């Protein structure tokens, strides 16, 4: 059978999606495929167009993998535009004079920005916001402009305003409607959104009808409003909506919708069954659709129609979630509460700029839609509840109220979703497909899920849900599969710990040669480094251990956003002399470091460059400070309240006890970080019950609490033993800490270790008090070795030229890293955001 001719007009996101799906179809071979592409480049990600201004290049945004079309034998007429269709002869003519025959024709011509007929709209300095070329023109013109006005306060308008604002222009948004983003949000949401955007320095003018654009010497200088007002403007960006590009269809006599757009049926066929239309140029059920989700659904349906399938268009999901100028905005389902009998539940926090509205059914059993402004973290789950019509548990307001103590948040986990639930609406991927891919292909990252299923590669808003599904599936699988550390060691951390001790192994190379395979990775290397340190307590930067350490341990500092480091000296128990405070301040000032008091009663100094760390520590050590191990999986701090010395309620000297404990256990490397606190009485001001080990003073001595946790998943510590004297307290702590170090998994905090201990606190008491395993003497001896061999890691480092030589940014230059750009804020410095510094670094990124 001879091949038939398929012609696609337009290579935007939807046109590309159509080709991509067609090329995967087994009946693809029946077609010769030709596509027109009017722009000078193939399809790119228009949804993320604005990221062009934050450093992405046209290549980054490209959707078509290089060579995809060529390899598949698709002829691309790049930079050529279809200008007419001859339906009799079944031919498309192009601007460059090509004549292309078709058996089936797919129109994917998209839409064009709507420029309202305002006098002066053709002046120099007027732009639209649709293509990469538009953005390039805006960027070059903005270089000589001071004031920019965006006409249109919808989604794209706000993105354009954000871009102008970042380019340093005084920015105004003018909107005809009484609120911003009128399509997506309601009045209250619009008000909160406006407040958040104005804080960023963008002026918002709503309810304004632009009547004229004034130009001098052909260049824009001012815009005028119908109400007599005016705004000075060096440039104007129109973003007042889009209109379907239906000219080709109109001229060849196809049916066109009342408000524009090529009319299609549920198989994407126009009034001529051999011509299909998809994407923004198509009009279905009385309207056009400016979102990529419906466009992709049309592409899928059109492929089915062309290849003899019978797929039909369903209902479109018009939900959107985006981050505009750093502000979350989302709307989903029946956001404007149009369904008869529906009810509205809303939460407004004008202090933090958060607005959440839910539309629920009359019986409050189902979620119909909603609007989120300022915090859209629950979008994915609320959308799922809406789309899958899952009966609500509890009162609907619990879904949006901030969680407070005592409130019982309803379970909203991915487990509640049916297998058939569509997780990614852009690419139409169901939960069951994702779960199967994770299981069958042994996927272990969200990136791998995206690559395997395409879920999350459209608008990206389902990415958090993918992470959650992955977590659940891994957990399910984890019970069945091994506890092997990683592909290099077919053993658990606990087994490796025993092998290291038993065979007195002191290096990674020896351990992997005898008990592993390959060359290691970022999972096993730090885990083994931690085991070696817990066992032998030798310097973490000695011998072959340098390459085992995560960057924090490797440079004995905490890496921060952008690649600078922070420094935390030890302040045992939080007790600090005025002279030490002055010394800290002097060093911070000397090196221009941002200073912040931490939650652990210490001072964190931020913004140090790699090569500055030794000099900073030279000063700190001279002032009597030691490493605080804030960079290590190790004992961090033992916090304390002021205790009986000062406090009229205190019953023991909690500060002295905290200092004693901190000095005893400082430097102990463990499977994860260790935090502690000592409170001087039952009022518990030091919050000891939220720590890995906590001590609360009593009239008779000390109560010891174990395995508490703050952070991501707070958990109260358990009372292990009451009214202990100091000696017993320390003995139990020695045993407890070494038992945890021996038996926990890598990166397992004491709380989750405890939750997995069969027998719970009773079991711990048996092992650590009654010595049921007969290991207590060993545990105490191991701790005694750690305590006796403690050295300040930083002091040892600045005394060793070989170690010091590695603290430099460039091996071949003393220059500082030019990418570490700082910006002044509240009398200190903060790192520049990527958007702020990208223009300076574009060359360097290459």
């Amino acid at each position, binding site marked *: 059978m001879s091949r038939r001719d398929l012609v696609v007009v337009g290579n935007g996101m939807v046109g590309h999606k159509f080709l991509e799906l067609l090329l995967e179809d087994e009946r693809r071979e029946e077609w010769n495929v030709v596509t027109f592409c009017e722009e000078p480049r193939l399809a790119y990600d228009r949804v993320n167009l604005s990221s062009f201004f934050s*450093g992405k290049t046209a*290549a*980054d945004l490209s959707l078509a993998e290089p060579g995809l079309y060529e390899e598949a034998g698709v002829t691309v007429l790049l930079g050529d535009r279809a200008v007419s269709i001859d339906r009799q002869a079944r031919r498309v003519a192009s601007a460059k004079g090509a004549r292309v025959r078709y058996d089936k024709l797919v129109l994917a011509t998209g839409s064009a920005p709507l420029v309202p007929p305002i006098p002066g709209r053709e002046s120099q300095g007027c732009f639209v916001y649709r293509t990469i070329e538009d953005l390039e023109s805006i960027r070059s013109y903005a270089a000589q402009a001071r004031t920019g006005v965006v006409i249109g306060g919808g989604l794209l308008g706000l993105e354009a305003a954000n871009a102008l604002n970042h380019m340093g222009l005084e920015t105004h948004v003018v909107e005809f409607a009484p609120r911003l983003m009128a399509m997506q949000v309601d009045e209250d949401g619009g008000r909160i959104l406006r407040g958040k955007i104005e804080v960023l320095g963008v002026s918002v003018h709503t309810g304004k009808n632009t009547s004229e654009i004034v130009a001098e010497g052909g260049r824009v200088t001012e815009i005028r409003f119908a109400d007599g007002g005016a705004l000075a403007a060096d440039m104007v960006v129109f973003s007042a909506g889009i209109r379907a590009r239906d000219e080709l269809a109109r001229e060849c006599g196809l049916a066109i919708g009342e408000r524009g757009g090529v009319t299609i049926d549920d198989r994407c066929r126009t009034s001529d069954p051999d011509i299909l239309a998809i994407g923004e140029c198509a009009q279905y059920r009385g309207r056009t659709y400016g979102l990529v989700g419906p466009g992709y659904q049309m592409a899928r349906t059109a492929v089915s129609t062309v290849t003899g399938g019978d797929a039909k268009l369903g209902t479109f999901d018009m939900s959107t979630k985006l981050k505009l100028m750093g502000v979350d905005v989302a709307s989903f389902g029946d956001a404007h509460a149009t369904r008869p009998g529906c009810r509205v539940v809303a939460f407004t926090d004008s202090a933090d700029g958060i607005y959440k509205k839910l539309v629920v059914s009359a019986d409050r059993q189902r979620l119909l839609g909603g609007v989120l402004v300022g915090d859209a973290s629950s979008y994915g789950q609320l959308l799922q509840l809406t789309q899958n019509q899952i009966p609500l548990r509890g009162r609907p307001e619990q879904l949006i109220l901030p969680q407070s103590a005592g409130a019982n948040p309803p379970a909203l986990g991915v487990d509640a979703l049916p297998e058939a639930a569509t997780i990614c609406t852009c690419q139409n991927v169901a939960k069951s497909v994702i779960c199967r891919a994770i299981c069958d292909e042994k996927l272990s*990252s969200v*990136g*791998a899920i*995206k*690559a395997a299923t395409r879920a999350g590669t459209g608008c990206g808003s389902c990415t958090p849900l993918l992470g959650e599904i992955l977590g659940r599936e891994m957990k399910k699988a984890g019970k069945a599969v091994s506890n092997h550390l990683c*592909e*290099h060691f077919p053993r658990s951390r606990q087994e490796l710990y025993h092998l290291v001790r038993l065979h007195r192994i002191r290096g990674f190379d020896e351990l992997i040669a005898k008990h592993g395979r*390959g*060359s*290691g*990775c*970022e999972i*096993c*290397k*730090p885990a083994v480094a931690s085991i070696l340190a817990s066992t032998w307590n030798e310097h973490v930067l000695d011998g*072959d251990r*340098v*390459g*085992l*350490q*995560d*960057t924090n341990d*490797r*440079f004995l500092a905490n*890496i921060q*956003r*952008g*690649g600078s480091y922070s420094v935390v000296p030890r302040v045992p128990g939080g007790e600090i002399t005025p002279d030490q405070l002055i010394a800290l301040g002097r060093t911070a000032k000397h090196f221009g470091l941002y200073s912040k008091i931490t939650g652990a009663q210490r001072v964190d100094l931020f913004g140090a460059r790699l090569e500055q760390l030794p000099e900073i520590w030279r000063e700190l050590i001279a002032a009597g400070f030691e490493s605080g191990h804030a960079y290590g999986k190790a004992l961090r701090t033992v916090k304390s309240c002021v205790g009986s010395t000062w406090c009229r309620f205190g019953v023991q000297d909690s500060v002295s006890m905290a200092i004693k404990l901190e000095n005893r256990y400082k430097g102990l490397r463990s499977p994860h970080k260790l935090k502690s606190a000592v409170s001087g009485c039952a009022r518990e001001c030091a919050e000891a019950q939220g720590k890995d080990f906590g001590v609360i003073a009593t009239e008779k001595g000390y109560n010891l609490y174990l395995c508490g946790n703050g952070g991501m998943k707070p958990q109260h510590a358990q009372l292990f033993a009451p009214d202990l004297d100091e000696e017993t307290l320390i003995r139990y702590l020695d045993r407890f800490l070494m038992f945890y170090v021996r038996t926990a998994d890598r990166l397992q905090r004491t709380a989750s270790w405890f939750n997995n201990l069969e027998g719970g606190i009773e079991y711990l008491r048996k092992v650590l008090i009654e010595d049921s395993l007969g290991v207590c003497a060993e545990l105490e001896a191991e701790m005694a070795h750690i305590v006796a061999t403690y050295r300040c890691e930083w002091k040892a480092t600045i005394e060793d030229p070989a170690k010091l030589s*590695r603290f430099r*940014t*460039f*091996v*071949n*230059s003393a*220059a500082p*890293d030019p*990418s570490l750009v700082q910006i002044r804020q509240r009398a200190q410095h903060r790192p520049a955001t*990527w958007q702020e510094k*990208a223009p300076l670094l574009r*060359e*360097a*990124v*290459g």
Partner: protein
Amino acid sequence: MNAVAIQSAAQESWEDVCSLDDVLPATGVCALVAGQQVAIVRASDTVYAIGNFDPFSKAFVLSRGIVGDRGGIPKIASPIYKQSFDLRTGQCLDDARVRVPTYEVRVERGRILVCCQPRAGGSSGA
């Protein structure tokens, strides 16, 4: 095609960045090569050079990652969010769409030389 190859060969230049001993086995350092930050990495018996820029965290830090292998592929993991990159090709092993530039490396008389132009193929993504 030929013309392009000849032109790039003519422009090719190399920079002596450091001695082999400056880079401990199974670690990386960062060098400035014609103004670009390049991560010089020793894995097993081979020295590799890839761009130092981590497209995920948008920071110049790849040289400070942990060196190892995945299924025998020599790789380095970003110290920020831990994505791994194939040291031979720059391909991100956790996201097929992302690739960082790579550079030719020669070791001569104990010195490491890096080609100033990245290999063809280029970077993409993230």
